[in-house]
């Protein structure tokens, strides 16, 4: 669905650097299959928005190529824009319009029939709990409502590809959940989605793959599990017992690679949990130890992100 190869975007001289082009995106390659979500993470100014603009055929790449929904982003820019739904960083609504008219206007730009426009607008307004506000002027909308309406605008033409820049920013937790659920549903409809966000838990929850971008380059890419394993090392498992280990601990050291321990708990690393965990459980149970819990110590995507970003500073 989305295939980018060596995408590079340079901008002409700015006031600061006369004559030297500024490279916003540098030789970026990525691919997103239908039904998958790629989260694009990175600090401000990393090149996420420029990447989205290139993939939505709003900006032409300086070098490299990309195909979106089967169309070349340069040669078939108009078709690409027809096949893509773009949620921009700012909602960018026409505040003098009513919500329903606003959605109708964008539907017309995508040549949708009046019936389809009306049906889709109402479907999504209801879905996001805004059907009652369909005839309100957008100037009366709250920040979160505006963001939701912008998201509906993105989906009005039922695009095969969605490029979402901070879809839940400025939303209350309930609205954000509605949007996340909608994204999950849209993914299941075999859409390819790129999600630019600073909300790392959201990225972890929604994305199949994560790409961390910095100074226009992808510096880490993979699934959350892969990235954690690659960047944070071997997973750590924690075992908690109902009673102290007493004399068992020296023998446990023979079983697994212990990192830390207390009277009733220990943490160990395991490259092969399928083998190590049952073996340790069996070993402890055979020796009368009562296991309360055995679980992997949670490692956040934030830790991965910070490690990647800081290591490249």
């Amino acid at each position, binding site marked *: 669905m989305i295939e980018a190869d060596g995408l590079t975007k340079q*901008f*002409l001289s700015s006031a600061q650097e006369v*004559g030297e082009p500024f490279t916003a995106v540098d030789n970026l390659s990525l691919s997103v299959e239908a039904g998958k979500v790629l989260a694009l993470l990175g600090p401000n100014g990393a090149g996420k928005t420029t990447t989205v*603009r290139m993939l939505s055929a709003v*900006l*032409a790449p300086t070098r490299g190529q990309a195909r979106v929904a089967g169309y070349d982003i340069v040669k078939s820019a*108009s078709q690409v824009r027809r096949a893509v739904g773009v949620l921009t960083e700012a909602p*960018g609504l026409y505040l003098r*319009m009513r919500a329903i008219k606003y959605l109708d206007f964008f539907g017309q730009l995508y*040549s949708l029939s009046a019936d389809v426009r009306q049906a889709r607008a109402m479907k999504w307004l209801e879905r996001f709990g805004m059907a009652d506000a369909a005839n309100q002027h957008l100037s009366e909308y709250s920040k979160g409502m505006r963001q939701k309406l912008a998201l509906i605008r993105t989906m009005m033409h039922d695009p095969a590809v969605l490029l979402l820049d901070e879809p839940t920013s400025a939303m209350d937790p309930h609205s954000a959940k509605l949007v996340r659920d909608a994204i999950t549903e849209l993914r299941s409809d075999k859409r390819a989605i790129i999600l630019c966000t600073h909300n790392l838990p959201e990225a972890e929850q929604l994305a199949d793959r994560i790409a961390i971008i910095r100074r226009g380059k992808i510096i880490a890419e993979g699934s959350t599990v892969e990235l954690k394993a690659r960047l944070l090392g071997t997973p750590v498992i924690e075992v908690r017992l109902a009673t102290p280990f007493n004399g068992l601990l020296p023998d446990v050291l023979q079983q697994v690679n212990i990192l830390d321990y207390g009277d009733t708990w220990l943490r160990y690393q395991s490259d092969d949990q399928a083998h190590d965990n049952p073996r340790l459980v069996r070993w402890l149970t055979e020796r009368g130890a009562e296991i309360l819990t055995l679980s992997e110590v949670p490692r956040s995507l934030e830790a991965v992100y910070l490690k990647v970003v800081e290591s490249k500073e």
Partner: protein
Amino acid sequence: MLKELAQIKLPLERRWFDEALVLSWRELRDTLRDWRITIPIVLLTLLFPVLMHITASLAVDWVQRYGGSSLISERTFPFMLMVVGFFPLSFSLVIALEAFVGEKERKSLEPLLATPLTDGQLYFAKMLASLIPPVLGSYLGITVYLTAMYFTRGWHPSLHFVILVVCLTTAKAIVMVSGAVVVSSQTTSVRAANLLASFIIIPMTLLVQVESIIMFWANYSVLWWFVLLLAAVNLLMVRMGIKLFDREELLGREVDELNPMTIWRTFKRYWSRVEPHGRNERVTVGRIYRRDIPAILRRLHLPVGLVVLCMLAIGVAGALMTRQFPLDKSTFDPMALSSESFQNLPTGFLPSFTSWILVHNMRALLGAAILAIFSFGSIAVVLLMIPMGVLGFAAAQFAIWGYNPLVFLATFILPHGIFELPAAILVTAAAVRLGATFIARQPGMTIGENWLSALADFVKLFIFVALPLLIVAAIIEANVTLPIVIWVYGS
């Protein structure tokens, strides 16, 4: 857009316009919802014509009461019709300047750019939406004025004149809107766009002043030439708009670059380069003559060709004019020329006739170059064509009087012209390029960079080629040409 329009094939053509009109209609509704725009438009279209009618009536009555000529009313009423038509057009600027940069400021532009609308559709839609309210306002104002004049004073102009005023008003509206849309698509804030609007307002004001003079002169047929001129400017403006319309520019720049230090640094960069995309190098006089000037001449080959062609054409046209306006031989007798004829030559505040010629030529060429900036280069060519037309006319007149025109050219022009003409052609060509940079964008350069690169070329060419040639030409004209003329023709 023109190319795009030409490429539209059935059944897509209807969709092209339909989609563009969706945007135009939205913009129109948005404009009409804004009381800050609608109230002044209504006032200007309904009250201003009535006010103009009262003013015109009072003025004419007052003049006639004191024995003034009825000619005053014949001139004042049509003039007021033009004014009434022009005033609502001022709103075309307000709306059109907002077109792109206003949306950019409100951050609603990017969602629009992400739709399937093509650049041509966006440009067409924005232009149409900016054009309709003020033009309709103008037509309504004209109607109100004409109705009031007819019912209160029984005055009505000829249908031909009404059509002329409507055409003039429409052509001016399109020029203003297309210019303002260009400004709007090239600036990063509404404030900057408003400041740059002077590039539109000043020429339009001058045009209206000239039109006013012609209105009072009552030589209305001349105004059709204005319609034609405005139509040509419209084509240029639309081309410029299409050429410069760039989604990247619209989204890419966040700060205005009208920074004197940046402009100076950019100019210095191009000054130090032989080619605009080349390396910065130390500038020496030797390098400029060896490498820069030949490179500039290569870059100027098209404008030079254009200027030479225009000069030849106007020379021939000037010669042909002798058929229509032949001069009597008594007007000028070259055989009567003597050294006394050249005794009171002008020097102005300058020490000699030589320096006067030099300063005059420099002033004319630099003035033309400045005007070229505001006219896409065209005024520079027109100003050079005027003396060439006169020259062609004079040479043909000499032939009619029985003198050899080649001898005329060889004596009056050739001695200094051999230096002066190349200088004038080169400077004019460089000025054409300076003005044309706005409509002929270079890949890999911003408009500002393109213009500053052309300016660096212009300055190099003027200082190192034109100026020496003009100095030599002035010396020859003052000290060699005149004695030759007297020697060949004089008594």
